[in-house]
């Protein structure tokens, strides 16, 4: 029933967007497909900020439009196809679950350019882009390792895809670098967006004795629970300091705007090519919210780590690192390659959870 309603809602939204698309034919049209709402305070809002930056930058040449709350799955393909039909020259599909749908639609519309966020399937007219979130999560892990008294963090995870598993592992690796016995409990909520369920997961983790929270879901609800209970937490995708003024330690902030502007410029110049872009802290696609609510020495350590990652001196996944069952993964000094990271489907040692089958 919920799916049906969402599908109907998506269709209604499509009709509206096509109506407005007919007007400005002379401007280049750039379109965005969002998985959540523009005002979720997290993932989708970060993309929306990027879209607004594009609008501001190319006010006279480019027109943007978007679809929000498009469910991943079969409906996504219809939504993306409608976008392509409505005259979009470049379409950004901003959720991992749109990957197959994006590639399928791109085949039917060879003249339209597509960019898929966080995926790994490309084509001549499909580029992929991603951010090295794990760099930020590694820093978060270090802070958690320093501050947690029980030595156990709680992680609210969405879906068991490589991106999320990579984040969990980066957090654990960072924490372990300062506290070798650091443990993590993980709850999979199987949704990106459900404030109630995310809050319930946060409470369940806290009731079971974790004393620091982090999340890989899109709303500020877990941060709010942390604030109520006076437990430290990390924000996700956007700065969540408003939801947790006394408890947010830092947040990884997605700043897609510069990337979007660069790609739209390439489109206008006629130099757009399919690329697989994966930038990180040093490129500014990922930034850290101010380090707050922590002692000065921990703050200093976090800042130093950030600087080292930016300069390339430190790669978060540097051996020795063992897999969950104790078998070696990376030898001392060995760095993980991007391919392994992008397809990551195993836990590192110290995570108190069984990875759901994919």
């Amino acid at each position, binding site marked *: *029933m*919920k799916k*049906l*309603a969402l599908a*109907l*809602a998506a269709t*209604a939204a499509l009709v509206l967007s096509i109506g407005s698309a007919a007007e400005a034919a002379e401007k280049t049209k750039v379109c965005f497909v969002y998985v*959540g*709402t*523009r*005002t*979720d*305070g997290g993932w989708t809002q970060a993309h929306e900020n990027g879209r607004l930056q594009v609008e501001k930058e190319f006010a006279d040449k480019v027109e943007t439009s978007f679809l929000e*709350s498009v469910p991943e799955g079969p409906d996504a393909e219809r939504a993306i196809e409608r976008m392509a039909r409505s005259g979009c020259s470049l379409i950004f599909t901003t959720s991992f679950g749109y990957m197959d749908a994006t590639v399928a639609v791109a085949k039917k519309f060879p003249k339209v350019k597509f960019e898929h966020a966080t995926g790994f399937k490309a084509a001549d007219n499909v580029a992929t882009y991603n951010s090295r979130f794990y760099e930020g999560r590694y820093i978060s892990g270090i802070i958690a390792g320093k501050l947690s008294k029980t030595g156990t963090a*709680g992680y609210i995870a969405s879906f*068991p895809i490589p991106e999320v598993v990579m984040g969990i592992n980066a957090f654990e690796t960072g924490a372990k670098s300062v506290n070798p016995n650091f443990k993590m*409990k*993980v*709850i*999979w*909520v*199987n*949704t990106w*967006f*459900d*404030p*109630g*369920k995310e*809050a*319930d*997961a946060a*409470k*369940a*983790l806290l*009731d*079971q004795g974790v004393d620091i929270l982090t999340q890989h879901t899109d*709303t*500020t*609800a877990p941060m*709010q629970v942390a604030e*109520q209970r006076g437990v430290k937490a990390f924000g996700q995708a956007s700065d969540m300091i*408003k*939801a947790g003024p006394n408890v947010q330690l830092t947040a990884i902030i997605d700043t897609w705007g510069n990337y979007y502007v660069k790609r739209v410029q390439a489109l206008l110049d006629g130099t757009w090519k399919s690329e697989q872009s994966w930038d990180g802290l040093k490129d500014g696609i990922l930034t850290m919210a101010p380090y707050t609510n922590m002692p000065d020495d921990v703050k200093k350590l976090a800042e130093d780590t950030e600087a080292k990652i930016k300069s390339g001196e430190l790669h978060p996944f540097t051996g020795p690192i063992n897999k969950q069952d104790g078998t070696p993964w990376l030898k001392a000094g060995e760095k993980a390659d991007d391919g392994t990271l992008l397809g990551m489907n195993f836990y590192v040692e110290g995570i*108190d*959870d*069984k990875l*759901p*089958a994919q």
Partner: protein
Amino acid sequence: MSIFEAILLTVITASTPLVIAALGELVTERSGVLNLGVEGMMIIGAVGAFAAAQLTGSAYIGIVGGIVSGALFSLLFAFLTLTLVTNQVATGLALTILGLGASGMLGEAFVGAPGIRLLPIEIPVLSAIPYVGTVLFKQDLIFYLSILLVIGVNWFLFRSRTGLKIRAIGDNHASAHALGINVIRTRYLAVMFGGACAGLAGAQLSLIYTPQWTENMSSGRGWIALALVVFSSWRPWRLLAGGYLFGAVTILQLHAQAFGIGIPSQFLSMLPYAATVVVLIMISHNRRTTMINTPASLGKAFVPDR
């Protein structure tokens, strides 16, 4: 607080909105009207409650705001389906879509605003009882209201004269009309009661469950409430039990994960829905009892003297 109490507290928070919204729909359906717009009325209630609380600074006025906005929104459904005799299923779905969209627009100004939390009311003496005390007698107003509503609706439907009329209309609106009962007016009131309840459930979401406003924050709970009505075979006490069963399974699967029980999380996430299906099958298995309770005129339009 023991983990036992902690779990029960979260179960109650998760179950209360389901129970309230479903109870309102139960009354609506007992009068023979099928309103599939619960999700939409709920989210309108959530934004109405949040806005009222923000503008006045009082969570209690927020509750009133939730109830009023839910009831007013359901009036639109009542006008379309009862006066203009549109299709109830289609209109209900439209109400949900409209509610989700309109609430996003209305709530735009409140995104990110720190919520005003409705604080628990401690009942003296009773709240000191070990275990149950903290869980049952140190709750917010909406929880107490939900229990009173179940008792009240049960009495109203099966013991009061108006309740008898509502059930008569739901079972056979033509006969009820012939007996001189005002079918349309009664249905208007039943629909608005459903809307008010859905609005109150929405208020619970934005004032207690997660004291904040985010678009789509009802996340499908209205649909679960609709399933609960069938699940309960249109009986308030069964509905209460069903609501708590659903809430309990939802919360327990999260705890099972945090305990590190090696069951796939997707399977655990599915459990509440699977439980619903199983109980539905168990109830429907005895066809006779199911049919006794289903309002025979459910979803059928009524036009006087036709």
